[in-house]
């Protein structure tokens, strides 16, 4: 954790956000912070990132690029400065806005990207931006929003190429919603329809969603192995050839062993 403070101190100003995440109690985290004097951000989550990231041991770290995709994963002690420099070279933060573009800020704060882009484009087209700095900032903002939208589409394509259609759909739905009216949102909609029309892809989306829901139910209700078993058995039998079906079968197998103990 001292390592994380060091990373934050050295790289935060260059665009690296350092976070530690756990689903333990607030009191456990407070005690930990008092004991270690940790200064980096800590997220106490309601979900289970360890499961979502398929973590096998603690601590595990992930360096996530500006497009939301993982650049590196491993033991935090292995994360060196060269790795951070690589990540920072990819950083694409929104440009600082001059006062002439102050009207865009509320849309950006609400993550209404398409609205922000439309307002900016209107200012550019209307000729109300008089200085070169204002024009340059406006052009940079439009480019940044386009990049943000396109990176969502590209990430979805990468997930699809790995057969992770549930993840692809989540990304595409985000692009469709957040960038409504932009070409990337139309592309996302087209891809969503194509996925929905393909039975194997649709089955992956449905079954993986059910698997995540079953895991969440088991966790939230603190279910005993015998109680949780039907949740996973039904997914395993209904979606035999999917990755969720296979994972559910493995979980059910383990639950049967645990129930017999």
């Amino acid at each position, binding site marked *: 954790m001292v390592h*994380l403070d060091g990373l934050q101190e050295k790289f935060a100003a260059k665009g690296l956000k350092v976070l530690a*995440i756990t689903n333990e109690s607030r009191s456990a985290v*407070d005690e930990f912070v008092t004991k270690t004097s940790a200064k980096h951000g800590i997220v106490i989550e309601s979900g289970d990132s360890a499961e979502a990231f398929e973590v096998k041991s603690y601590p595990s770290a992930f360096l996530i690029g500006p497009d939301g995709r993982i650049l590196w994963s491993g*033991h935090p002690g*292995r994360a060196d400065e060269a790795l951070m420099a690589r990540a920072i070279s990819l950083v694409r933060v929104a440009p600082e806005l001059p006062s002439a573009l102050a009207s865009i800020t509320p849309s950006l704060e609400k993550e209404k990207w398409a609205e922000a882009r439309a307002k900016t484009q209107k200012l550019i087209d209307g000729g109300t931006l008089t200085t070169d700095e204002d024009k340059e900032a406006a052009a940079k903002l439009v480019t940044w929003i386009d990049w943000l939208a396109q990176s969502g589409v590209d990430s979805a394509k990468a997930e699809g190429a790995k057969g992770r259609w549930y993840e692809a759909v989540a990304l595409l739905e985000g692009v469709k919603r957040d960038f409504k009216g932009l070409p990337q949102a139309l592309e996302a909609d087209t891809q969503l329809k194509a996925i929905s029309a393909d039975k194997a892809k649709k089955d992956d989306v449905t079954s993986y969603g059910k698997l995540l829901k079953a895991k969440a139910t088991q966790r939230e209700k603190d279910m005993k192995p015998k109680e949780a078993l039907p949740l996973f058995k039904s997914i395993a039998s209904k979606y035999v050839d999917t990755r969720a079906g296979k994972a559910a079968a493995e979980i059910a197998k383990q639950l049967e062993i645990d129930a017999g103990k």
Partner: protein
Amino acid sequence: MRWKLSLLVVGATLALLAPCASAALGEGDAAPEFEGKEYVNTPACTLKALRGQAVFLEIFRTT
């Protein structure tokens, strides 16, 4: 006591030497979003809201 310490050292060394052994999601995979409910030393945030920045995320246990 000494053998316990040795095991710890060996274990820690192996963990450091094994790339990606501690995590199944790896390079190129989309990072799953988290649902934060409380935040310490940081304003509320999500991975989505941090797009554009690089994020070093450590999943840990206090015990």
